[in-house]
């Protein structure tokens, strides 16, 4: 019964992912992505990785894709963008990448098919993961922390308004940053 669930989840994941790639409506594609992620979470659970499954839902589906949806809503990609998307996706474009992917998939499967190995079917719980994470992998955890900090700073910088204002000023944004131009603005603000 559980094995059947695995194959069903795999099928769901594959189909949902296919729709993610081919859909023209960004928000619908995102919901398909969530479905795909949930299916993968089920697979994780069945493979004996409940902690990974939970994180897949909490972080991936619950936070990362929500951010996507957030941006899609913020940019308000409505019907016009669907039409434009249709215009961008000419059927001929799919041929090259599909052939390339097929070659890769075939050679990839060819390499490991028939190994006869099975997954262990054992549960590796959060405790084991935590112990390994803060034992041998502690350096990597620190590095991941640094990465997230860097991303935080980067996102903060990118989200600031002035990048947008510089665009409006003229076509040569780098000149905008010079202090002699910044000064009159400041004084004008002071007067106001």
């Amino acid at each position, binding site marked *: 019964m559980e094995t059947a669930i695995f194959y069903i989840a795999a099928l769901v994941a594959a189909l949902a992912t296919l729709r993610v790639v081919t859909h023209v409506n960004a*928000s*619908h594609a995102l*919901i398909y992505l*969530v479905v795909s992620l949930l299916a993968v979470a089920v697979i994780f659970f069945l493979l004996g990785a*409940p*902690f990974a*499954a*939970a*994180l897949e*839902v*909490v972080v991936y*589906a*619950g*936070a990362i894709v*929500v*951010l996507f*949806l*957030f941006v899609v*809503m*913020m940019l*308000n990609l*409505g019907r016009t963008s669907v039409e434009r998307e249709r215009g961008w996706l000419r059927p001929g474009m799919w041929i090259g990448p599909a052939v390339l992917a097929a070659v890769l998939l075939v050679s990839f499967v060819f390499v490991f098919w028939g190994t006869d190995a099975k997954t262990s079917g054992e549960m590796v*719980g*959060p405790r084991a993961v935590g112990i390994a994470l803060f034992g041998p992998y502690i350096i990597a955890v620190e590095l991941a922390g640094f990465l997230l900090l860097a991303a935080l700073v980067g996102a903060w910088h990118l989200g600031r308004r002035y990048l947008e204002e510089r665009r409006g000023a003229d076509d040569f944004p780098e000149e905008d940053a010079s202090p002699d131009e910044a000064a009159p603005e400041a004084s004008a603000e002071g007067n106001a």
Partner: protein
Amino acid sequence: MLILPVAVGTLVAALFLVWWERRLLGWWQDRLGPNRVGWFGVMQAVADAIKLLTKDDWVPPFGDRAFFVLAPAVVAGAMLMALAVIPFAPDWWIVDVNIALLWFLAMSSLAVYGVLLAGFASNNKYALLGSLRAAAQMVTYEVFMGLSIMGVVIHAGSFSLVDIVEAQDDLWFVVPQFVGFLIFMIAGLAESHRLPFDLPEAEHELTAGFHTEYSGMKFGLIMAAEYVALIVTSCMIALLFFGGWKVPAFLGFLDFLPPVFWFGAKVFVFINFFILLRAAIPRPRYDQLMGYGWKLLLPLSLVNLLVTGALSL
């Protein structure tokens, strides 16, 4: 096989909570509240339900039909799914998984989608703004919610809710984890976007926020989901911090009452407390809410986690 009783029971409880909340609010605010239908207006809830069921189920033609239908189901479904892991008494649970706590977090994070999709599908600027707010608010407070209960996990050494309750034999976790309890309560309030944190539907700013366009039973589902969320949050507080079904030590002479009674009593206390909060505290501004989260709760919960971890080494 408790699935059906729990699901139906919770929905009915949610229905009557609407009436109870209105009565309580009326009492606290020195007015009457619903008192005409049935005894003390009890049947008002039933009347409301009948009204919602028979109302015209309108779908806006300018919106995204699929999402519009899907959204209430996601909201209510996620909350009902969260109920699956809650143990009401010894051996009274639908399922006990060793990651029950994570399951609860996962479901509460999936509930975001319902709100987001509802607002997005309505294609209405108030709804859109409401769901944007909801997304940011819920993603933000999910972080502290997760962090705040990690202290409990450290104490109990397990993600299983049954284990956590069993670990509170001697001492309720509200004592060593008081900060965690506060943060969890605030985050739970924000997660279920109830007053005072109901910014996604702040009625004097956004009409009715993300569910402006909803009516009929879809609206009913959203409403029900809100009350289910309230129940689930109260259940979690009772389980994580107040010893679940265990008899309070100072009421030890009453231990002939069944465990489920104690669980129910605790949940009821917290539900009433949340209703009291609604009556007592005004709604903050949106930026205040977010700043409060990131600048106060995040450091606080991190410190709490650090201290807990250091002390339990």
